């Protein structure tokens, strides 16, 4: 069985935020909600300052803390490793948000925020609410664009290789800093990158074994 994962090449990332916006557009995310983010930090002191750019998203951990702590079973891990939330089961206790050491979950508290206040929803927003019906009072997060993965696989496409079956953030990256594929397949591009460039995960000490890797060389 495949285990979907992502590799982000930090040397290639230019911090353009295209991935953030592509994700927002793909899932018609409401104002102020981001499933993917770009963190920009600085290390060192002048004149030896180094700028670091880290795109982050749900890590779809193999040993996901959010799945463990969910009291209702709303958060589950699929066989392919993608962590999903069933909005119909979520009670909004936010224990999963606390448990996620990467802080990649958002509580959807306000469904009245509009991109164009007092002008109603645009046709695109109406369509988005039909395609991705988020529920107020529940927790939401990145789903690795599983609707694209599932539809792509149904059509015989390969996620990571064919654009239609690949997450939107990977497709949108103009610097080709993101790679997507099967971590269980040693011949996949992501597995090779991790092996060749010594890919690392964020906070491995938590024992969550994230499916998102970073490479720097």
């Amino acid at each position, binding site marked *: 069985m495949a285990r979907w994962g992502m590799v982000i090449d930090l040397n290639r990332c230019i911090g353009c935020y295209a991935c953030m916006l592509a994700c927002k557009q793909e899932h018609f995310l409401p104002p102020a909600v981001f499933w993917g983010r770009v963190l920009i930090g600085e290390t060192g002191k002048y004149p030896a300052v180094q700028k670091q750019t*880290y795109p982050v998203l749900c890590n779809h951990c193999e040993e996901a*803390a959010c799945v463990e702590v969910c009291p209702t079973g709303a958060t589950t891990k699929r066989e392919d490793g993608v962590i999903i939330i069933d909005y119909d089961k979520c*009670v909004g206790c936010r224990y999963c948000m606390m448990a996620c*050491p990467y802080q990649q979950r958002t*509580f959807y508290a306000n469904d009245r925020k509009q991109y164009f206040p007092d002008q109603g929803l645009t046709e695109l927003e109406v369509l988005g609410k039909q395609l991705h019906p988020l529920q107020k*009072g529940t*927790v939401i997060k990145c789903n690795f664009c599983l609707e694209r993965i599932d539809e792509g696989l149904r059509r015989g496409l390969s996620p990571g290789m064919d654009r239609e079956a690949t997450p939107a953030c990977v497709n949108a990256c103009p610097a080709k800093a993101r790679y997507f594929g099967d971590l269980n397949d040693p011949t996949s591009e992501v597995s090779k990158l991790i092996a060749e460039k010594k890919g690392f995960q964020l906070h491995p000490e938590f024992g969550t074994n994230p499916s998102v890797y970073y490479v720097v060389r």
Partner: protein
Amino acid sequence: MKPYEWMVKCTPQTEWIERRGILFWLAFFFIELGAGAFFIASFFNIVWGMVIGWLICGLLGGGLHLLYLGRPLRFLRMFLRPQSSWISRGIIFVTVFLALGLIHIVLTFLDTRIFSLFVATNIFAFLVIIYGGFAMCCINGIPLWNTGLLPVLYVVAGIWGGAELTMGVILTSGALTKIGHSVEEITRVLLVFFAFLVVVYFIAVRYSSVTGDFSVREIVGRRWKPLFWIGVVLVGIMIPLGVVVSSYTLALERIPIALLWLSIFGGLLGDLVLRYLILKNGFYSPLIPSQAT
């Protein structure tokens, strides 16, 4: 915290303490306080203490817990995952405790005591007291919470608060009886233990990790310094300790009742403030590896 500092530096959790999160803080406090009061009152067969503890746990604690939920009407689903979720275990503990406690109270009013029911109710009261600490300490992303000392601290605080509340019930009902003296003795022991645990807890967390050290410094020496030293140390520990010392020198009966009340309110307020500070200063480590300071 500015938006561009999010997870680049130590980032505080907000969902369990800001905006509606305030309900969560109060819910944990009242649930443990109520169960603690029931626990102590039932040992001394103080029926009004049990009633007040039960009401505080059920109505205030349970009610605020439900109000905090984003989808409160689905709360029955929270019973489904006790095998791995402390929130699920907690709601089961609270429900069973409230059910058994109600039967125990009714039987006590009828002058009928069933020993097995008494034991079972108090086991569940104790489980309710420990649940908050365990729910928080299993979150390994927040070093301030991720220590085995937190449940111990919360258990002592819960039972101490319960004993204080029971003492309040005894004072309200009139003169200090022999039972009153016994309850006061318990509060004294627990107060000393609580003060000791607060010190040990902060020292242990401080040396556990860079983020843990950051959290403790925020509480003890930086932003929350006035609230900690005045709210927890002075009001929550020193004032009750002063009353304890004076009761040993003057004898409990000669202590003005107002001073005993001051000690009770001080202790409860100190516990409440400490819980606020622990929730408020639950910091996550930065995501960018080299920015852990």
